């Protein structure tokens, strides 16, 4: 620690000061604690930004490699290796299914769309590097059993939250923080229905109420 570093009191000093009830010292301590809180808050924010920036650089590096590959190979990888469906890919990339079908048969693709496709491939590569065995399953499953079951990681990805999802996959971001960073609020997203399979294989949407919540 340098001479310029602020010297903060120990927990014992603070505790003793509070017990002794000396008003002047308590005010001073409170000021110091407040400044420390501000400093640590700023540090936390700086580190969060730094983490997202490094993730962004990793993703960009992956995109740079993938964007050079043949679009048909990228699409084939997404379906046959990753196990995504055409409709799912269309939602994740933000285009229509006919557009995807056109690319599959060698049709023109614009530079922003090629970039979006390469980004999805690079994102899944990074997810896999985080010891997630099946990135497509991870993407397609709900964020939490306690939440609205339609709120999947794929929904957040399609809404432009790839970096937050990478931080979440790294366990460096809590679910609450992920939701907040993605513009969702916990209370409004709670489960309201569940899907039940019927005797004939069809699926019914059953509203959850107090009597049938597990």
């Amino acid at each position: 620690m340098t001479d310029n570093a602020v010297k903060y009191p120990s927990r014992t000093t603070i505790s003793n000061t509070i017990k002794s009830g000396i008003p002047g010292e308590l005010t001073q301590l409170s000021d110091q604690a407040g400044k420390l809180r501000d400093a640590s808050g700023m540090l936390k924010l700086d580190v969060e930004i730094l983490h997202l920036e490094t993730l962004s650089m990793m993703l960009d590096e992956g995109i740079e490699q993938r964007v050079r590959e043949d679009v048909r190979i990228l699409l084939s990888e997404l379906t046959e290796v990753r196990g995504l469906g055409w409709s799912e890919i269309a939602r994740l990339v933000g285009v229509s299914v006919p557009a995807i079908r056109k690319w599959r048969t060698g049709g023109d693709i614009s530079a922003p769309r090629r970039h979006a496709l390469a980004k999805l491939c690079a994102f899944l590569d990074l997810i896999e590097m985080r010891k997630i065995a099946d990135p497509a399953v991870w993407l397609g499953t709900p964020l939490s059993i306690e939440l609205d079951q339609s709120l999947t990681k794929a929904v957040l990805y399609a809404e432009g939250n790839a970096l937050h999802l990478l931080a979440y996959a790294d366990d460096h971001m809590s679910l609450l923080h992920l939701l907040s960073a993605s513009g969702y609020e916990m209370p409004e997203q709670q489960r309201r229905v569940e899907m039940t399979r019927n005797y004939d294989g069809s699926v019914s949407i059953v509203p959850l109420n107090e009597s049938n919540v597990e």
Partner: protein
Amino acid sequence: MAEPLELPRSIAELYLARVHEVSSMRPIMTGDVFSDIEIPGVEQVDGDERKLAMVVTHPCSMRKGVKMKVKQQMIRVVRSKPVELPAWRSQYFDRLPLPALLQPLDTDEPADEDNGTNDYAALFEFRGRVSTAELLLSRRIACLSEEGVAFLHQRISHADTRYPARISDLMSACSGVFAEAELAQEWNERLIRVDVDDHVALAAALDHEALEFESIIGAQRSYVQGKKTVKSAMREDLADDRKKAHARRELLRLVREREK
């Protein structure tokens, strides 16, 4: 005042395919629009010169095994004045607006194109049972997407009961059967070699491949997932978010083997 219904993010979101985009290789599904269809018991309506009709039988109820049931429920599709997207929320409860039905996109951009031409609507009141034999693939002019079918279901159930299920819930309930239809289309496109304009040969090939597809997708099989051995049919797995990707990979691997 709360508005009961949801609206699509764009017009393009409603459609899987329109006009020349429609593939004969896709199995007939809810939300498909056919031309030249007489609906028994449904009188002539303004704007129905082409006798367009949409299949509204639920995707889980339209087949018995591989075969389609002999009749399907259909509703009349007519030319209609344009409906602005915000009006979807609180107006036109008696219909599913079908903007730009006959105007496929020639771009990969998700656009909100709507110049008022080619605007149609599916009218819930004009409903009847049509022989499945009438549903010739050569007469299919559009297919709704999963989102499009969910909007159909939300509006039609609201029209009948005044209870609108959420779009995301409706999509979850049908996700397995749509995944299956998409894979069946992929299977047919990659394995059927006949000329699509030879309707007789195509129909025979589609029937044959439907049986082959069913023998795989409907059969119980076991595989190892993590530390567990799972026993289930591919069809069941396609309806399960945790198993869908595995089932899709497995099926596409089989397609690739058969292509050789």
